[in-house]
């Protein structure tokens, strides 16, 4: 007589318990996961009656098609990284289907007390350092069903901790990869203590450009007083991936954050990107580069929250849309009553490369202070045929002319990105995708 042990599949109470039992984690972390699972069970799936989901249709998304990160396929090759090409990095970490694959950190940085690698691996060893930041729950696990699911099942991902006044000169690199049909529940946690400085290049990629899968992730950036963080996040999943993400930064007094996102991949992406300026004189610059094609749907909700006085935030999102693709950008500048002398700006530009593409651009202001400067702008338009004609009279082919015009459109945001390898990688990736302008 033989017996078999069945592993629960899908996202159920049984599979959650099985996932939890297989992890080597401190009790406080398990308690956080249990609370999040409870919340997941209570919350409904987002509905198109919700303002935030009104323009994003996920009725074809089937959660039961995917396994938990604990049961995901573990074999496969890491796809090449784009952001670190030609860059000498101080450390790198990678995961595949939400499981850590490799991590390294230079001896010099390790000697200075820097922690960098897989959150899975570093949490048990450095729980005393990391626990207060994990427990801060910068991303609210009760925000919606996907936030709760992530908080219950997060796995893999990366953590960067830079101690007080340590300046990390070389960029660090993190890659989250997925095989076709895989899952990615990675969590990114970045903590810069007072006066620290660092640059983190983070990217996602699939095993092939058409691969499917499910990403349910979070990014938490904690920039303590007088610290400076440059953070780049490139979403480059395969064309069949469902991407749901909650991303939030806390920027403290006199600290600075430059946050650049590139959104190129995924079948559907729904991202909440939130910057909270929590201390006086903090500043944040947010750059967004989106290029869509086919039937992609990328939806970004951005939030610039001024909680303290004398802070500055400046957001620029630029999107070019090809074929029948669609983008949705909803931006909000929220200024609390205490946040006098705020200087906040948000702008979203859209370049329509086809008749069938569509961009929804919805800027918003919510201001409770009475001594602020808050402005916003939004544009959408097609490529001027005269520009193409002129370039062709100078000897360029039509496709070259279109590429040049698209590159010019993005130049404004590229000029703000201070990391050359990032500018080059985004420019190359977009150039490869531009075909022609369809009527």
């Amino acid at each position, binding site marked *: 007589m033989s017996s078999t042990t069945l592993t629960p599949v899908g996202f159920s109470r049984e599979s959650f318990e099985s996932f939890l039992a297989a992890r080597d984690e401190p009790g406080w972390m398990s308690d956080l996961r249990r609370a999040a699972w409870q919340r997941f069970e209570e919350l409904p799936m987002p509905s198109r009656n919700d303002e935030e989901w009104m323009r994003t249709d996920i009725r*074809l998304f089937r959660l039961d098609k995917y396994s938990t990160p604990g049961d995901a396929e573990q074999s496969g090759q890491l796809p090449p990284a784009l952001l670190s090409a030609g860059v000498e990095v101080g450390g790198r970490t990678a995961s595949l289907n939400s499981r850590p694959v490799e991590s390294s950190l230079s001896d010099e940085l390790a000697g200075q007390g820097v922690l960098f690698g897989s959150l899975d691996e570093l949490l048990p060893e450095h729980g005393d350092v990391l626990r207060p930041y994990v427990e801060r729950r910068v991303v609210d696990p009760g925000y919606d069903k996907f936030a709760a699911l992530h908080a219950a099942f997060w796995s893999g991902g990366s953590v960067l901790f830079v101690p007080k006044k340590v300046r990390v000169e070389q960029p660090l690199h993190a890659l989250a990869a997925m095989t076709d049909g895989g899952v990615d529940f990675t969590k990114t946690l970045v903590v810069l203590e007072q006066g620290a400085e660092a640059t983190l290049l983070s990217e996602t990629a699939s095993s092939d450009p058409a691969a499917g899968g499910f990403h349910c992730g979070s990014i938490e950036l904690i920039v303590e007083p007088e610290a400076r963080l440059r953070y780049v996040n490139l979403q480059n999943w395969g064309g069949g991936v469902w991407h749901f993400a909650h991303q939030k930064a806390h920027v403290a007094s006199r600290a600075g954050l430059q946050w650049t996102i590139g959104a190129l991949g995924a079948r559907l992406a729904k991202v909440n990107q939130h910057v909270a300026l929590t201390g006086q004189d903090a500043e944040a610059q947010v750059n967004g580069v989106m290029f869509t094609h086919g*039937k992609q749907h990328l939806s970004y909700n951005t939030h610039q929250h001024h909680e303290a006085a004398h802070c500055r935030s400046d957001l620029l999102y630029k999107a070019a849309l090809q074929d029948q693709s669609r983008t949705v950008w909803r931006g909000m500048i929220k200024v609390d009553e205490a946040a006098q002398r705020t200087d906040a700006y948000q702008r979203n530009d859209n370049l329509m490369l086809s008749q069938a593409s569509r961009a929804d651009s919805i800027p918003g202001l919510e201001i409770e202070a009475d001594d602020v400067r808050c402005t916003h702008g939004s544009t959408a338009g097609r490529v001027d045929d005269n520009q193409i004609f002129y370039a062709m009279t100078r000897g360029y082919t039509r496709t070259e002319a279109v590429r040049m015009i698209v590159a010019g459109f993005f130049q404004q945001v590229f000029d703000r990105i201070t990391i050359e390898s990032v500018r080059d990688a985004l420019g190359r990736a977009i150039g490869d995708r531009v075909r022609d302008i369809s009527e």
Partner: protein
Amino acid sequence: MTDFQPVARVDEVPDPGSLLVEVDDRLVVLIHAAGHWYALDDVCTHDGGPLSDGPVDPAGPSIACPRHGAKFDAKTGAALTMPATKATVAHEVQVDGDRVLVRLAPAG
């Protein structure tokens, strides 16, 4: 051009009435009105609302978006009333015995 695919049984959709179906990763609203069958993309071209949640008018025949009331011609997908100004995509429908079949219009 794709083939006709069975999407529902005749008795699943009252007359007048509609049913949301999934065909090759595409959401389609199947409409039954005055004895005839129609199929449209389940998307209001005004703001992306789900037509399948809206009422069917057999006299048109048409279907209205539940969000802002834009009406679409069930046969052609043409936008009949504001705030929609662009047609939604119409697909071919056949009835074979007790089955309703849909052939998707080419993308684009």
